[in-house]
């Protein structure tokens, strides 16, 4: 029992320390973004690597999410008879909620974990120390371009994903449920979608910030060889997932207040 409490206490202190160092990382990243002096080539390279190469997985995920949401709201519709709900329910869920958060999760798995592993390897092989010794600020050189690329890519990918999600929903209606896809679109039109679309993008930008900050932080604090890198990647995806849902709740809450 005492041991359990002790380990719980240690975990708690560790998490507090982690939250602190995440904030420091976020602050230093933002500071290195102004004035914008990062080099454009590096940024484009990262945008390609991060954004373009994540496109297939994002499109597939979004299509499936659209399908799942339509199937799900069907069961509700069948019980209540509110057919308009197929389009509205699925559309709102995809745009404001599941689109951004599931795309965010997939993106964190592909890009965040990758960044943590990459930075972790640079730390383990002393390449980060070497940057410091060459008077190059690792935050400005390694973290800032990734931050910009990750946030931009995730927002753009969410736009694409939203579209694919709706297409997926319409296809599910048409082929799986034998509902005319026009009913789906009519349901969509019934509700104000623009607001939800925008809140979805705000969320995507925030998730991008979370993913970039967490992965850079875990990557740059690796210690202990191959196992250390594995541990960092693991910690990174877990913390990111937690961060995504906390940010999601905060934004949803603030959004409904105003």
């Amino acid at each position: 029992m005492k041991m359990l409490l002790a380990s719980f206490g240690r975990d708690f202190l560790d998490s507090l320390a982690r939250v602190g160092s995440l904030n420091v990382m976020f602050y230093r990243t933002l500071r290195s973004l102004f004035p914008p002096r990062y080099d454009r080539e590096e940024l484009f390279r990262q945008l390609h690597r991060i954004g373009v190469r994540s496109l297939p997985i994002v499109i597939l995920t979004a299509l499936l999410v659209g399908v799942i949401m339509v199937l799900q709201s069907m069961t509700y519709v069948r019980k209540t008879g509110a057919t308009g709900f197929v389009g509205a329910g699925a559309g709102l869920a995809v745009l404001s909620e599941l689109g951004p958060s599931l795309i965010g999760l997939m993106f964190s798995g592909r890009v965040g974990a990758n960044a943590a592993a990459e930075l972790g390897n640079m730390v383990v092989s002393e390449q980060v120390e070497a940057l410091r010794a060459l008077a190059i600020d690792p935050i400005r050189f390694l973290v800032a371009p990734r931050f910009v690329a990750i946030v931009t890519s995730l927002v753009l990918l969410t736009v694409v994903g939203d579209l694919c999600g709706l297409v997926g929903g319409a296809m599910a209606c048409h082929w799986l449920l034998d509902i005319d896809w026009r009913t789906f679109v009519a349901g969509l039109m019934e509700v104000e979608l623009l607001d939800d679309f925008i809140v979805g993008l705000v969320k995507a930008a925030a998730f991008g910030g979370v993913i970039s900050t967490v992965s850079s932080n875990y990557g740059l604090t690796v210690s202990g060889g191959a196992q250390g890198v594995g541990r960092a990647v693991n910690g990174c995806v877990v913390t990111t997932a937690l961060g995504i849902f906390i940010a999601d709740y905060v934004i949803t809450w603030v959004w409904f207040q105003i």
Partner: protein
Amino acid sequence: MSEPTPVARLIGVDKSFGSHTVLAAVTLELPAGRCTFVAGPSGTGKSVLVRHLVGLLRPDAGEVWYRDLRVDQLDEQALLVLRRKCVYVFQHPTLFDSMSVAENVALVVKYHKGVKARVAESLARAQLERMGLSRLADARPPELPSGEQKLVSLARALALEPETLILDEPTTGLDPYAAFEIDAHVRQLKEQGVTLLVISHDLQSIRRLADEVVFLFDRQVRYQGGMQGFFEANDPVLDQFVHARVHGAI
């Protein structure tokens, strides 16, 4: 010849990792424009010692000075300024393996000269050319033998045009010819008036190049003085090191 002013000084530096004390009250001066060698058995903390000079490590106690800067109290931003003048080349070649050799050098140029990528690249190639390394420009670092990796690391550091250069075991593990090539570069730098601090247990290099020798042993500076004095010192530890005797304190 008058005594040259020190560029860098360590005063009473202590450093431990956990319960393992690596340096105890180490005091050291680095004279300007001279070539100082640091020698000592493996694992005595030579690398740890010099990392204090560029602020990669901070002492538990004591002071580190570079000219009139108190290095151990600088923050990261101020350290970046220091590291532009005083460059440390790592013991292991720490090239960025996602970039080609030329890009590795160009990176430094781009950051510190504030030039466009294309200009930086051509300056980098010129630097490689001067060191006779043009043939490596497009190779990826992991493909190169370790001697060439070390040469490239040196080239990358020189792209900063440092006033003080710290080399951590530049010739260890190289064949005699590659070692000779590195030494030739060091000699050239010495003639250009760059202050040099070289960690090495390569006695040949020491004979060829050293003005001063610092011998580190058992957490302390055992000897600091001229090169001749190092080889002739009447100290059993130095004697054992210089003549590679099996029996003794080391």
